[in-house]
């Protein structure tokens, strides 16, 4: 048991390293991402300054809190985009699923490791932009290490949640084969309901409830709330518990859904 865990760990570590390297193979992406995020930070900062022109607080948030929140949301927004749906689309259209199914690995674990490794590289690549936001755009970050720890744990859990949700959603690709529409719907819903565009607390009550019923906020608004002064360190255990619940439920559901979808390929030949 321990031996097989150790073996799996070494395999998945190698896969994570590979995913990180693959991501780094595309230098142009990094620069394109840099420019797009930089421009969007400028747009969002000026937009929210204009909104706050005649008011000191909005839904209980001061301008500086909103600016901090929105800058963090911009920096992290690629985290609520999806790669799983594209990957599924490619796999099914090209028949690559046949190759993936002949690897002696759990496909879901493997792709999850790859996805999280890529996100890790992405976060490191965003560091220069963090400094720019902090130096020039008035992002105010907390000094308390507990809040940072709460943020990172919550971010990791949230990324797990969104990965599992995407895994389930992407299984639709097995039935519709056309994934462009799926990803458009998913990215639009993801950026809005994760709070990447507007802080969730500013939304009307019914929209907030809807957002809470969807998993996207777990990957964005929830972790970012620790750094923007919306959640406190005392809220952390409660928030983590909710995230862990999401994680477990989606883990079970996504494995069931994937099992059914794969059966369609293995029975129907895709």
């Amino acid at each position: 048991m321990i031996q097989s865990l150790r073996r799996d760990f070494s395999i998945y570590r190698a896969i994570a390293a590979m995913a990180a390297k693959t991501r780094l193979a595309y230098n142009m992406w990094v620069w394109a991402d840099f420019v797009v995020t930089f421009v969007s930070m400028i747009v969002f900062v000026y937009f929210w300054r204009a909104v706050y022109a005649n008011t000191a607080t909005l839904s209980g948030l001061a301008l500086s809190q909103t600016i901090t929140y929105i800058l963090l949301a911009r920096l992290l927004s690629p985290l609520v985009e999806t790669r799983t749906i594209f990957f599924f689309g490619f796999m099914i259209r090209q028949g690559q699923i046949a190759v993936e199914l002949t690897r002696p690995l759990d496909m879901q674990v493997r792709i999850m490791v790859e996805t999280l490794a890529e996100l890790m590289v992405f976060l490191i690549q965003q560091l220069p932009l963090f400094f720019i936001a902090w130096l020039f755009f008035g992002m105010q970050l907390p000094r308390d290490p507990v809040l940072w720890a709460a943020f990172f744990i919550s971010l990791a859990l949230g990324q797990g949640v969104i990965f599992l949700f995407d895994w389930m959603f992407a299984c639709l690709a097995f039935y519709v084969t056309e994934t462009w529409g799926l990803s458009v719907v998913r990215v639009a819903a993801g950026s809005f309901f994760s709070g990447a565009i507007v802080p969730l607390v500013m939304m009307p009550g019914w929209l907030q409830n809807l957002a809470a019923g969807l998993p996207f906020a777990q990957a964005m608004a929830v972790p970012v709330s620790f750094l923007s002064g919306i959640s406190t360190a005392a809220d952390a255990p409660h928030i983590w518990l909710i995230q862990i619940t999401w994680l477990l439920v989606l883990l079970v559901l996504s494995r069931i859904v994937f099992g059914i979808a794969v059966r369609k390929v293995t029975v129907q030949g895709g």
Partner: protein
Amino acid sequence: MAIIQVEHLNKTFKVQRKDPWLGGAVKALFLPKYEDKVAVDGISFSIDTGEIVGYIGVNGAGKSTTIKMLTGILVPSGGSVRVLERDPHRDRVANAREIGVVFGQRTQLWWDLAFIESLSLVAKIYQVPQARYKQLLDQFAETLELKELLNVPIRNMSLGQKMRAELAATLIHEPRVVYLDEPTIGLDLIVKERIREFIKEQNRTKSTTVVLTTHDLGDIEELCKRVIIIDTGKLIYDGPIETIKDRFGKYREITFETLSTPGHVDLPSGAEIILAEPRKISVRFDRTAVTASGVAAALMNQLEVKDFSLSEPDLASIIRQIYNGALNEEQAA
């Protein structure tokens, strides 16, 4: 010992039938109509350790479907498959550890990584011990001429380079059974030769069992002692390649381009004209009765020949002959 055991294997797909044009597409959206398509129809065979078997048939005969059932990624609709004493579908991951698969048009390597990185990751996934990996890498680099390719990403490789890389990755964990689905498709002669050499060597030194689908008669003649031929999902021949060659490869064709219009020509016995056009004449001859040079000499004595070509019987024509022959024999019986 039988390493692969297939009994009364069946695979039926449900395919949606759409009427043409937009109207049909809309109708299919609301009232989908399905029909059954039988891809594999009651096939049985067994393959022993260390055999290289050519699994052949024309496009759409059901070759790939069978291979997919053998690898465990397709569930049979009926009958049974045992590979290494396992049900390859139920024990897909355990089965995957001991087999190697090349799907001719796809890759198991990572597009953007240098080949050596992809290869070492594959070795890691299959738990190849480091020392063994080094040893095999040296061997493979030699036979498949991979040395200059090690640092090239897969996306920058030519078709032939990619296939050599793919084969190395497929065999780096020394699988006991290897399925090669059209491994030489679209490759030039030199690469084909190299790949055949490599497969032969693996088979000879490690008793690797190989199941090979191909359209290339050269692959089959060089590699396989035994062939299984299927047509429209049914097994129509299972036996030594020699029998096929003797029975159906008996005839050859020579086509001559002539400077004048051929009139009456005398041919040695065992040869007959199958096509006569102005400036072109095709002759079919029985290899056991007369030689190619005999036929060519006879014609060249009578006609001014500009060019000529000798054609091997192709797979499709052999299959057609077997199929017709098999049907005739059944009727006679």
